[in-house]
């Protein structure tokens, strides 16, 4: 049988689009590494035998900056993003965490958890709002039972009411 001439496999579309997506990741890393290199430099590098406070950040930043450049180059025609970014989910979860942070000490554990659950489940269109509210209550009570009663962690259950 004749061996087939070496043919390039058809170009796969990366699932997330943005074929050069990986390169952006490299750029992020590069930027981060510069931050630490500058910071480390400012903190003082010391001498090799008596390393200064900034030596480690600077060195790791330096190595990372080089590596990230390589990554940019390698990823220019790479596999791209692993999936289409789900911005709605990102915002919803971020908002849920923010809600928890803002509410748990102001209104207490139970209302805070309830609100968090609702915000987190916002992107879920298959669950109605009353359904979300009920879920919130269930989770909030469960958390109260487990964390406050059982484990005796210092959470305020309700602020301003109890």
């Amino acid at each position: 049988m004749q061996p087939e001439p070496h043919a390039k496999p058809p170009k796969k579309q990366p699932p997330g689009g943005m074929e050069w997506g990986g390169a952006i990741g490299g750029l992020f890393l590069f930027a981060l590494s510069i931050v630490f290199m500058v910071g480390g430099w400012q903190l003082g590098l010391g001498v090799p035998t008596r390393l200064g406070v900034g030596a480690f950040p600077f060195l790791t930043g330096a190595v990372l900056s080089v590596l990230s450049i390589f990554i940019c180059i390698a990823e220019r025609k790479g596999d791209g993003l692993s999936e289409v970014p789900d911005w709605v989910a990102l915002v919803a979860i971020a908002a849920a965490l923010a809600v928890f942070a803002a509410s748990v000490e102001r209104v207490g554990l139970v209302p805070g958890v309830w609100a968090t659950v609702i915000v987190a489940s916002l992107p879920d269109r298959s669950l109605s709002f009353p359904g979300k509210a009920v879920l919130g209550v269930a989770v909030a009570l469960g958390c109260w039972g487990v964390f406050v009663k059982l484990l005796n962690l210092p959470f305020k259950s309700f602020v301003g009411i109890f």
Partner: protein
Amino acid sequence: METLANFGGGLLVVLEPQNLMYCFIGVFLGTFIGVLPGIGSMAAIAMILPITFYLDPTPALVMIAGVFYGAEYGGSTSSILLNVPGTPAASITAIEGHQMAKKGRAGVALFSTATASFGGGIIGMIVIAFLSPSLAQLALSFAPADYFAVILLGLIAASAVSNGGALKGIAMVITGLMLGTIGIDLTTGVTRFTMGVPELRDGVHIVIVAMGLFGVGEVIASIRGARSGTAAQTVDYNNFYPTRDEWKSLFAPILRGGAIGSIVGALPGTGQTIAAALAYAVEKKVSPLRDKFGTGVLPGVAVPEAANNSATQTAFIPTLTLGVPGSPPMAIVIGALMIYGITPGPRLLTEQPDMFWGLVASFLVGNIMLLILNVPLIGIWVRLLRIPYKYMYPTIIVLICMGVYSLNNNVFDIWLTLIIGVAGYVMRLFRFEPAPLLLGFVLGPMMEEQLRRTMLLSRGDPMIFLQRPISATLLMLTVLIILFALVSSLRARRRNRAAISSTN
């Protein structure tokens, strides 16, 4: 043979009803708390500490130990099911474990970890029983230079943990190292990169990094499936139990993991995380299934579990025989002992043989209890997976928040988790793996501390690394491993090029 006699005596101690009961309570509580993300063994032990005051030292110690390794085991459950590591060491288990769960093989994964933990625990117990004095001696002779060499080896292993390509793996480890410098520099007390934020003075807590990178990132990535109303992860009930061949394939990894874990765990400060990472990296090189690592292979799930369970147990060696806590929970153990007027130290073996051997024997009993407790639970956990994800994921988010908040009762930590979580999702998009970053983050500060301390102690002489036998050997080993990796990747590339050109 004296050891066997001692062990027998310890077994008698442990089989006393009171000790048995507290062993069970410890193991039960530990597993339950370990499953909750973020609340690891530290919080669990602090929680039961008040009860221990009413007890005698032996049942108290047995209970605390039970909580400790129970939590470690529980941590693997949430790792596998949810990709949210219950403890940092469990993040390695999550690599293969969660992949298996995604393929419907959660049951198999959970059985494997149960078996592996049991196996690792037994190995750890044997090591303690027979090798305590020698390991204590070994730990005693470790100087900062030697620790640096061990941690460096651990870091190289961490780079090898990445399944997405060496370049990205190393970059992630370095990023972790870099981020680990945030906070107070231990050697000089100067704050680094805290940008004036007082909560960052003590650095970013590892639980926050783990929860953010793994937990939050995973939830964000998984919502899409939930939103469209697709059911939860499928469970392949035909594949519930491991097959005979799969059971057999667990044997060697458990031995390897247990061995690595027992030794690494006995070195104070290195801990279960390094043990799990090292074991996984070694397994990747040695296992017949090495090419499949990253897609969900049994050895990959078993080895870190065996390693971290045995490390959890041998961590008691430096704690009890040297009074040096291997990790924060061990510091609590030492504190608890001191309240009883028992000073950990070389004398403990001779002055408190009943307690020591009762503890060692309790590892056997406790691990058996864990097995009996958890095997039926596997069915329940797996059924949990069938709850539609749309109900699960807000719960997971709440659990993550609770776990993080319980660290310091400070909402700042939640905000931090938010930022890291977003970064974790973005990383996932760019196909950067979180596990190497976590490892770099854990190991980096330790490595820097030991490096600068070595320089201080040697009055600035770098030759000390080669002068001390342990560090010299380890460093040479590290160099050899790097060289070997470079050579084999060059050869692989040459082979690939040859293969491509030969088909032309």
